[in-house]
């Protein structure tokens, strides 16, 4: 098969099919059903950058389906510190596993790994580039809330420049006819190149620095963290840190079914008092990482999901 490097590797039909598969796998992801579809398969987890949710949810997804995981572990204790190239690391893990999840600080690393490997590569984030498995879990979360992923008003907020999550997501949403409102300080605007491509694909975009007026008509408000680690200059970070803070009172006049999403971790962009509102979807979103990655792993390994899933644990 088929590596997943960017959302362009999936057609709209693929996306709908995988989201439907994920829906079927929900009882397995929750541990209510035992379905060892990936028994005997091994996932190589290679995370060259810190990760909590993505790494753990890949691991959980594999284990819930009866598969196993080998981890690179901390980069500091691997051969990478001895100067091993990514090429050699990939060629080695290629022999140890049936599928590889790769996170790397440099853009293009997942494509390169895919060129080097015989097994499929799941891009788990390449620098400020792409994060397609996150996009799939985001789409799954949106579909759960609205019953569809088409023609919604989606407000993307925060670090749109360096945030790979919003890069991948914005491409996908435009493909499904969603209107995007891009809310960020000017220095963190979505890169022009991406804006131009989205427009070429027929995307309806609004660009603003002001969050509050956008809430009323939103179906989805997607908050992101201003990523300190991506700023070359700390002064520049300080100027924009904390510029957007969503509190429960801001949600008094929003649509009933509007959801607030966040790829997490959050710093202070969503106040904890939002957690108890009907709109908070970010913890469910984090759980959805498991079920969506289960469906993706099956797809990448060409393991069909049964039409009907049954059998008690």
């Amino acid at each position, binding site marked *: 098969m088929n590596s997943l490097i960017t959302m362009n590797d999936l057609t709209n039909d693929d996306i709908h099919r995988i989201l439907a598969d994920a829906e079927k796998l929900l009882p397995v992801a929750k541990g209510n059903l035992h379905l060892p579809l990936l028994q005997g398969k091994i996932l190589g987890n290679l995370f060259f950058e810190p990760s909590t949710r993505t790494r753990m949810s890949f691991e959980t997804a594999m284990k819930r389906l009866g598969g196993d995981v080998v981890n690179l572990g901390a980069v500091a204790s691997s051969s990478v510190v001895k100067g091993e190239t990514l090429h050699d690391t990939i060629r080695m893990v290629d022999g140890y596993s049936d599928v590889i999840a790769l996170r790397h600080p440099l853009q293009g690393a997942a494509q390169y790994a895919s060129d080097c490997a015989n097994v499929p590569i799941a891009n788990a984030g390449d620098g400020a*580039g792409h994060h397609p498995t996150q996009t799939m879990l985001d789409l799954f979360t949106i579909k759960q809330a609205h019953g569809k992923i088409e023609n919604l008003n989606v407000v993307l907020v925060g670090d749109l420049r360096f945030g790979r999550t919003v890069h991948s997501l914005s491409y996908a949403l435009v493909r499904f006819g969603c209107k995007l409102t891009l809310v960020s300080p000017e220095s963190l605007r979505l890169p022009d190149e991406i804006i131009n491509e989205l427009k070429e694909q027929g995307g309806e975009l609004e660009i603003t620095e002001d969050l509050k007026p956008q809430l009323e008509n939103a179906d989805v408000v997607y908050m992101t963290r201003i990523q300190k680690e991506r700023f070359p200059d700390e002064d520049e970070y300080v100027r924009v840190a904390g510029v957007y803070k969503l509190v429960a009172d801001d949600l008094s006049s929003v649509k009933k079914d509007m959801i607030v999403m966040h790829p997490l971790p959050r710093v202070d962009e969503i106040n904890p008092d939002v957690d108890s509102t009907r709109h908070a979807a970010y913890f469910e979103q984090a759980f959805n990482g498991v079920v969506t990655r289960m469906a993706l792993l099956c797809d990448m390994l060409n393991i069909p999901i049964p039409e009907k899933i049954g059998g008690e644990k």
Partner: protein
Amino acid sequence: MSADEQSMRRVTAIRNGTVIDHIPGGLVLQALQIFNIDGRQSNPISLVMNVPSRKLGTKDILKIEDRELTQDELDRLALIAPMASVSIIRNYSVAEKLTIQLSDEMINVAHCVYSNCISNSVREPLPHRLKVLSTKPLILQCHYCGRNQNLERLIGNLL
């Protein structure tokens, strides 16, 4: 005599070597950079800049004596002069006429302009791959990071 013929005769005919016509006006100095011609070579080089051209409006011409360009070098020229016509001259006659025919990808011609692209990790044993998305205008995209390339900066990244 046509304007193009007049332009060609602004410098004398060469006995052996390469004549490159239809370089867009003002870009011949970048062509020199592409061919690693820095003035330290001993073979004669003639330049004509900003002469009238029916095809391009204005054009530059480069004559390199005693050196025949290879296909690889032609591929590099595509970065600034995809419409250039190249004649290999032997004993004052045109022995071969070459045109640049861009393939779908330029391999090991230049490296990606983005320093945070994996392809700029010097120890990785990878080919530098630029996809040709369009020839008119020339739009190149890094195979690895997927970003479109600024051609002026890319000329500084020739391999």
